[in-house]
């Protein structure tokens, strides 16, 4: 299997890479849960959570810059929370007007906005570390460990296996369109046809992608049958957790619970 540009996994041999995937998975979920439960304005807790995830990033040897760059993805959505600054009723910090509109920034609104921003930034970093340090088969093992139904995990697995094939297929379709429909990146030169025509072309590309997927899945099914598939999805039993691993998971969860209690006791 060739390394695909879509796959975020980065191989390595760090402590984080070697950790049992089930533990990574559960601790990541716990971490995101705690970040989400942390009350608005509990700044020291946010700083602690941030330093935890930052040290995990350093331990994972993925490169802090890499993780931070990927985490920029979350920033666009922050726009959805922006109006909260102006609409929460509280002590007014600043009033300014733009044209005919007057905006008032309130303290509670600002605190709420910054908290939402920090929560989502911290959470996305945890998710990035998990995805970048754990190969997909190990993630599937973690999914089975938390009792996600076998059929669903099997669909996940097959999707992952053919994702790269179909992504390449989609890229080929787009290259073919690029070559034939007079598109130019040059400023001022219009792309070919009307918007409706372009939408129709894209639709037929999607249709042919779906048709190819249907036909491919027929072939895959035949290949599976000829190799002894009996309509039953099986998987190797999960390996046992080592003693160190249970220690890490208990320690990690305790730390998270402690942080959460700290946050709720002092800031809720």
């Amino acid at each position, binding site marked *: 299997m060739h390394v695909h540009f879509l796959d975020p996994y980065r191989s390595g041999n760090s402590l984080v890479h070697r950790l049992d995937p089930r533990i990574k998975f559960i601790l990541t979920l716990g971490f995101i849960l705690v970040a*989400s439960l942390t009350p608005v304005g509990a700044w020291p807790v946010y700083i602690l959570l941030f330093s935890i995830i930052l040290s995990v990033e350093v331990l994972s040897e993925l490169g802090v810059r890499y993780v931070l760059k990927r985490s920029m993805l979350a920033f666009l*959505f922050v726009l959805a929370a922006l109006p909260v600054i102006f609409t929460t009723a509280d002590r007014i910090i600043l009033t300014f007007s733009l044209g005919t509109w007057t905006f008032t920034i309130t303290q509670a609104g600002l605190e709420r906005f910054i908290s939402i921003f920090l929560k989502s930034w911290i959470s996305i970093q945890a998710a990035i570390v998990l995805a970048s340090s754990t190969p997909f088969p190990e993630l599937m093992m973690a999914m089975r460990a938390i009792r996600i139904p076998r059929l669903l995990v099997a669909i996940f697995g097959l999707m992952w296996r053919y994702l790269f094939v179909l*992504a390449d297929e989609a890229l080929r379709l787009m290259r073919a369109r690029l070559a034939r429909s007079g598109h130019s990146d040059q400023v001022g030169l219009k792309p070919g046809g009307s*918007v409706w025509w372009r939408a129709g072309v894209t639709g*037929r590309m999607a249709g042919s992608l779906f048709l190819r997927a249907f036909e491919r899945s027929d072939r895959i099914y035949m290949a599976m049958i000829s190799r002894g598939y009996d309509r039953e999805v099986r998987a190797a039993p999960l390996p046992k957790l080592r003693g160190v691993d249970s220690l890490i998971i208990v320690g990690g969860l305790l730390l998270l619970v402690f942080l959460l209690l700290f946050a709720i006791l002092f800031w809720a």
Partner: protein
Amino acid sequence: MFLSPFLSPQPMHIPDGFLSISVSIVFWLFSIITIGYSLKRVNRDLGERQVPLMGVLAAAIFAGQMLNFVVAGGTSGHFMGAALATILLGPWATILVMTTVVGVQALIFQDGGLLALGANIFNMGLVGVAVSYFVFTTIHRFSGGKRWGIFVGGFAAAWLSIEIAALAAALELVLSGTSPANIAVPAMAGIHALIGIGEGLITVGALALIYAARPDLVKVQKEPQAGGAALWVGGLIIALILAIASPLASAHPDGLEWVAEQKGFLDSAQGPLYEIIPDYVLPGISNEALATILAGMIGIFIIFCFALAVAYSRKNRQNTNV
């Protein structure tokens, strides 16, 4: 340029941190129940024979989201695929396929959060699929299985499923106290009304090609799906609730913000979780709101009668055919 859908998160995928914990949990529960039921249905109706088809189609939807077209200037329309998959694969399998797509987007590509995944699966899986199914089967039946029914139904299913899913996402943000209703609802509704047109056009284009090349794939849907009636009603109810609740919420933001505060209360575990649900049906209702709801209920009644009439005439026609 090819990567743009991956590098720019789609507005419908809610990241972590934007939903309050009770909203996350409630929508996780909805999603888990739906996924469990779909698994059961798929196991019973199709067997695990469909596993490769669902896996590969999930990959196709994911890859299909790379396909985009230039609308104007730097903006481009692209494709989500819930409606097309519902038409081709049937609703229950599509719920699993969309769950897989949204799950991989969150888990691997951080497009949408992990804790918020329940809500995202609810919006794009359950709501998208149920609304598509409801709209497509209704129009398809109404057309008497003619060709135009497939295309009109496909466009309407694609557009409405995007729009209603966006409304669901907006209301989840409002309920979490993350975004004020009078801004989030019109903004999401407005953006997705346009995105939905792109989705509709792509879906029609795809259906045209598939209808020409493999008409058998589109015809599968003519056979009634087991459990389809329940989903049809579900799609109708979801569409109506959201279509009624959203203007209400944006006209009375105070009401919903009050609920959000109450829920902030609940977040610190001071009240039983189940109290949330009766809470947000009623707050801040004035006469105007009551009128809207009444209008909505009359609407439900009319649509229901209409649908029953269509179903009845169809049944009669089948009887005379036999």
